[in-house]
């Protein structure tokens, strides 16, 4: 029932605000985005694009790492923390289902992340636009960046719930979350890169590699933002991989991942014995 989801969401949102997570996540996003925008403003003149385009390209690279990280940091405690404190067994004796509890937490946590991403990337984008100019294309790119970063965060947030439901302690959940981030955001790309180098432009590089790229939400996020804007693609030099894929591949991946990961989290949570 919606009433139960709202009750849990209101409580969780308050906790995030009290814990200063809302504040520190927004601040972190903003500071990194500003730093990258103005440190990376050098190529504006040479490429003939406005500063906002350069800023979006830099922030895309930043968000690939930061959005999943913040999402996992917010979500890893969700189930294991309550189990450890002993409140999980109590809350579950109330007439609410585990799915409602999970959705309530997801709503609250995603709002926190959404606010942090929108304010952080938005403010940095605004600063870039004011000091170096912007056009309809670069404004579109900024909007797309913010929306896709929230989708990317939602995927990893739900994966954080999976980690939280699978481990019986908070420390275990934290370890699992960090491992997840490392494998999916860092090692996955390194592995693919190694495979591509080994393959040397063969069938794997041409037919399998692009799909493997789209299958990972972090890479799908990159692909979508890059292929969405000619100018951003120009700066990041990542147009090649995206060209081999149909247009819908990366967006589909980013939309399907949060749903699948939430379903996985619900399944893992159902097996938890409080």
């Amino acid at each position, binding site marked *: 029932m919606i009433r*139960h989801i709202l009750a849990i969401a209101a*409580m969780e949102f308050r906790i995030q605000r009290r814990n200063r997570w809302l504040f520190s996540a927004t601040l972190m996003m903003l500071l990194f985005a500003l730093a990258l925008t103005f440190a990376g403003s050098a190529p504006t003149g040479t490429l003939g694009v406005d500063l906002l385009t350069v800023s979006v390209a830099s922030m895309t690279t930043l968000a690939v790492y930061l959005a999943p990280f913040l999402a996992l940091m917010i979500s890893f405690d969700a189930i294991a923390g309550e189990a450890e404190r002993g*409140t999980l067994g109590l809350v579950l004796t109330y*007439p609410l289902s585990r799915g409602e509890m999970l959705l309530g937490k997801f709503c609250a946590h995603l709002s926190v992340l959404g606010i942090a991403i929108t304010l952080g990337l938005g403010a940095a984008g605004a600063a870039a636009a004011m000091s170096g100019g912007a056009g309809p294309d670069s404004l579109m790119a900024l909007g797309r960046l913010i929306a896709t970063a929230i989708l990317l965060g939602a995927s990893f947030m739900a994966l954080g719930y999976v980690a939280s439901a699978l481990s019986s302690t908070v420390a275990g959940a934290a370890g699992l979350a960090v491992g997840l981030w490392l494998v999916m955001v860092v090692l996955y790309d390194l592995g693919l890169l190694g495979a591509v180098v080994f393959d040397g432009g063969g069938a794997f590089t041409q037919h399998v590699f692009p799909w493997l790229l789209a299958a990972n939400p972090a890479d799908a996020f990159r692909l979508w933002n890059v292929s969405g804007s000619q100018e951003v693609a120009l700066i990041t030099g990542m147009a090649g991989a995206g060209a081999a894929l149909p247009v819908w591949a990366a967006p589909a991946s980013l939309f399907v991942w949060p749903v699948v990961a939430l379903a996985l989290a619900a399944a893992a949570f159902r097996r938890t014995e409080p």
Partner: protein
Amino acid sequence: MRDDGKCALVTEGLTKRYGRREVLSDVSVSVAPGERVALLGHNGAGKSTLVRLVLGLLRATAGQISVNCHRPGSGAARRATAYLPEQVAFHPALTGREHLTTFARLAGEPSSTVMPLLERVGLAGAADARVGTYSKGMRQRLGLAQTLLGRRRVVLLDEPTSGLDPVSRHDVYAVVDEMAANGTAILIASHALTELEARTDRIAILRQGRLVADDSLKALSRSADLPTRIHLTAQAGAADRVQAALGGTRVNGTALELHCPADEKMARLARIAEMGDAVCDVEMTPPSLEDLYRHYCGEELR
């Protein structure tokens, strides 16, 4: 299941196995409306498992449970059940009022019920302080307050007084008595035997997953047939003479301890009186709940 309005909580042949390990075997116990039942047993005897089964947090391997005539874990059963877990740590960043308001919304109660409940458990002054600043007793009071939300027919308390000071303990039992007076069935799992002795109507004892006793304290004492202890203090120098006449074991230079069956108490007292001045003090102790607990859980039973 059974719907005679008599039993708020009934379990029949309840069994829970983890692999080949049997944690509960064939436990049939019931709690009537307004009845306070103490659930005793060593750590690992199956008390918590029984409580979690009743709450629907675990699934029974065999047997049946009826909570206010509903299947455990169903919406109706959950609405009728309140639970106070042992050592519950509410989120330290939220206030007592915020916690209780969330629970009220989950239970479908209006938020206007929250403040009166906080007053009822003596937390009105700390309602807007964060739980992180609460003492152990205050946190337990908050836990107790959430069991009072709505009209609960069955209340399960797991070690409700552990770590509390005497005043807080008294307050906890005052709330328990009030709930029982309103017709709520109450099951208290605890180790605080001396408290439970005066505060419960019936005692159920689990031993290695089996129910070894389930009756009132009086009936259990009778069937266990435990001796009454008599502590005698003799006049200086008269202890040997008293021991020669009455038997028993010496505790020290002047004190003596005797055991006698409940029905021989008066005869034994008469013989002590015959000793006249040689005995200067007599103390009689009937078997306590602790003695009974030892008897039913002890190795001598089987």
